[in-house]
């Protein structure tokens, strides 16, 4: 496999990493785009989904949004937005497209998490005289946390993927290594760029899976479940 040696040579060539359009710059752009958009989409989606789940409204919307999001090609939205009026404002077309595709998994998972919090526990808390806000903060939110974190993880992986595609209409990020490689018929660069993207996506996925385990409030309460009443 001569290609593997070529890819290795590409990756170990220092000049490919530094300088304008080098790996480090593209990696920085990719992480910046992913991070900013994850924060933005969490800030938009989580309060809304938690509230909708708490009052039990808009379930069909929150659940169907994920299905609708799947049917709309990410590539098409990126191109449409970059050609529209937003395209004139630098990164904004990319940021809006990324956030749009990160919202569905966040909304769907957080909503489902709150709705499927054990109704008996919620009723008991209400019976103890908890107000709506206390109920949401102290009962529903901790019970929903595993699914919320699944949503954050899915959204983050999605963002890494969408940010890669953003290179096609001329955005930054590691995808640029792949598109530039295609442009120059430079297969080693295409494969090297793809490897870097894949590793970044897997690292993000692993990190958030670990974070999910550390944050889970039920983690500290092992099998000592109360006797059924």
């Amino acid at each position: 496999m001569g290609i593997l040696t070529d890819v290795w040579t590409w990756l170990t060539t220092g000049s490919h990493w530094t300088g304008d359009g080098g790996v480090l710059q593209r990696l920085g752009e990719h992480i910046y785009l992913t991070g900013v958009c994850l924060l933005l989409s969490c800030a938009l989606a989580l309060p809304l989904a938690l509230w909708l789940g708490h009052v039990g409204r808009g379930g069909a919307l929150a659940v169907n949004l994920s299905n609708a999001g799947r049917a709309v090609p990410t590539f098409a939205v990126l191109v449409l937005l970059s050609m529209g009026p937003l395209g004139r404002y630098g990164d904004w077309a990319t940021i809006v497209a990324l956030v749009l595709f990160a919202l569905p998994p966040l909304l769907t998972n957080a909503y489902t998490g709150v709705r499927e919090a054990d109704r008996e526990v919620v009723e008991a808390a209400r019976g103890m005289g908890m107000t709506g806000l206390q109920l949401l903060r102290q009962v529903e939110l901790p019970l929903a946390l595993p699914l919320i974190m699944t949503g954050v993880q899915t959204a983050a992986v999605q963002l890494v993927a969408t940010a890669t595609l953003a290179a096609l209409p001329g955005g930054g990020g590691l995808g640029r290594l792949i598109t530039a490689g295609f442009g120059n018929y430079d297969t080693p660069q295409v494969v090297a760029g793809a490897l870097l993207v894949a590793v970044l996506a897997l690292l993000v996925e692993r990190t958030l899976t670990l974070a999910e385990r550390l944050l889970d409030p039920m983690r500290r309460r092992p099998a000592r479940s109360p006797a059924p009443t």
Partner: protein
Amino acid sequence: MSSAAAGGPQGCLAQNEWLCGEYLRTRQSELLDATVEHIWITALSIAIALLLALPLAVAARRWRAARAPALAVTTILYTVPSLAMFALLLPVFGLSAAVVVTGLVLYSLTVLVRNILAGLDAVPGEAREAARGMGYGSGRLLFEVELPLALPALLAGVRIATVTAVSLTTVGAIVGYGGLGNLIYDGMESFFKAQVLTASAICVVLAVVADLLLLWLQRALTPWTRARTRKRAVRGPSAPTAASTHDLVGKAG
């Protein structure tokens, strides 16, 4: 749109408008060719994935030791972004449709294996015991009892995989085999608004039509699930089924 009807230098093509009837009329055959390519790439990928997923899921079920590694590999494959997946397959297949089809097969395989496994796991032990008691061998048990009972989960997986594949095929434009994605890509390079919007819209329509057709197939093949859903709805909310849980984890880009 009145200018569209007029055509000529003042027409919507010359004005580079988003919505353009003239574009639809003059580029019909181009649009049709792209749509046909889009459909065969998607359909072929799902068909191959289904043929591979069934034996894999059955094997992962029979040999418990194979289960964890199989699920780990599929999770890793699913996490790789589509552009990277196609780029990684480029040295293997060169600039060909095989790059796109193989990438889509790998993604679909993930959804299908997980859903078929979840479906097989959900087969009630009583049904299995009853079949064994009636003298069913393991082959007959699989094909006449377990697979039919896992059919709803399998078809739910096929729906998710198909809609995802229709959307991801567009990225195949990077190797020149993206169906409608090719038109989006060319439209992007030449800043041709009507072409990008029309091809994108047809893509969404394809995904929705495919989803509805599969939903209809699902209803036709598994009439018993509808009766059960109705009963469950009366009893109130229930735990999510395996298929709907997987719905919570999407794939795009």
